[in-house]
């Protein structure tokens, strides 16, 4: 069993790298398009709606293949790692954008009225009043999306990246020891998911501090 670990660890590292970068870029897409969708600028709004609908309406696998195999034919070439991160973050960003939009809509109207009565501009009201209140609302669904993202990274083995799933598959071909290998892999994915959940819980507690009643 210990013989498998180095190879699997290398794969797990790739998986973590993919998850980290695509979550980061995905968060950016979530905010950009989530806010864009509620914008008064018609162009920004339509681009955002189109992006969200397209990336939620097609499968990640197809998106990944398109970016990795179809784009190069149009002259855009990138490494498997970049292609993987791009596909994952655009995909997760489309779901994240809906989370951002929903959370902002859940901020009650009277908060905007208070902001208006104090003569904040609509943009200031969004940034300083609505967003900080929406943020704690976003974190639990974001947590789910990040776990989803971690699991989705397994698909990148199909565009030649040697992530955890890829390593497992090659080891199995070599040794035929399916039970041990896949059990190990199962636990490694689970361990990573636990880690992410813990990080998100910490974040939730920090960001939502003002929501706790009683003594701080």
């Amino acid at each position, binding site marked *: 069993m210990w013989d498998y670990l180095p190879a699997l660890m290398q794969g797990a590292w790739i998986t973590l790298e993919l998850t980290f970068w695509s979550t980061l870029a995905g968060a950016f897409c979530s905010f950009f398009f989530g806010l864009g969708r509620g914008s008064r600028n018609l162009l920004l709004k339509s681009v955002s709606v189109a992006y969200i609908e397209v990336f939620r309406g097609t499968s990640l696998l197809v998106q990944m293949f398109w970016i990795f195999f179809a784009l190069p034919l149009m002259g855009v070439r990138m490494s498997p790692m970049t292609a993987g991160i791009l596909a994952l973050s655009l995909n997760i960003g489309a779901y994240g954008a809906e989370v951002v939009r929903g959370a902002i809509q859940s901020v009650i109207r009277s908060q905007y009225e208070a902001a208006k009565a*104090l003569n*904040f*501009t609509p943009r200031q009201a969004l940034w300083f009043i609505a967003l900080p*209140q929406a943020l704690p609302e976003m974190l639990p669904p974001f947590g789910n999306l990040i776990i989803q993202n971690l699991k989705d990274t397994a698909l990148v083995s199909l565009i030649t990246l040697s992530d955890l799933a890829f390593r497992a598959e090659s080891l199995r071909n070599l040794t035929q020891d399916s039970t041990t290998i896949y059990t190990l892999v199962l636990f490694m994915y689970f361990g990573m998911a636990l880690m992410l959940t813990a990080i998100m819980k910490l974040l939730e507690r920090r960001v939502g501090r*003002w929501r706790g009643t*009683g003594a701080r």
Partner: protein
Amino acid sequence: MTDTLVKFDRVTKRFGDFTVLKDLDFEVKKGEKVTIIGPSGSGKSTVLRVLMTLEPINEGVVYVDGRPLWHEEKNGRLVPAGEAHLREMRRSLGMVFQQFNLFPHMTVRRNLIEAPVRVLGLSRKEANKRAEELLAMVGLTDQADKYPQQLSGGQQQRVGIARALAMRPQVLLFDEPTSALDPELVGDVLKVIQQLAEEHDLTMLLVTHEMDFARQISDRVCFFDQGTVCEEGPPEQIFKTPKNQRTREFLHAVLHPNE
């Protein structure tokens, strides 16, 4: 002629088919403290919300300090105002909400500082000084670094008053400032408002169901019914010798609810 600060000139406001304000004529003079009383649904809140530019009007003109609130002049004609005009007009207005509407993610101090800094361009230091003076005035100096939900309703409403005052409005609007409070907390808030009324030349427009309070602080009481001013006058006259039948009925119902 004394200066008129707020003037509704034949203002009509509709929600769909329902007319909330009907050809409303209504004036408030500089420094005057006016209370609006009247049955539920008579349009009291709507008057304040129109003034705070939270609700647009359908017909007529509202003037604040002689300038149309919801309109701007273009080639000698009044056209609906743009955001820039509304922002400028809003500088003279402030509002205290029934549900306080404090910003829950900010401490009391930041609730008071945020708008003066971001909107008026005060330095943090100036804004903080202003905030401390106001907190002292409403008796909450020791609560500055708490979050709103750590305070009682009465304390929250006093923060709400301080927050509105931090913007130095000319007119302060109160929409039932004590209606959401437990009875034992009403007194502290009313005391603050009364003190404001006595010590400042601030113009105040106040919707309330606290009749004793209205009698004490107002220069004039307006009885609203079905979207118009049904009767108005000095508090003594309105409460002791109301001329209008509907005013009498309303006052009787509120002052003697068990008969």
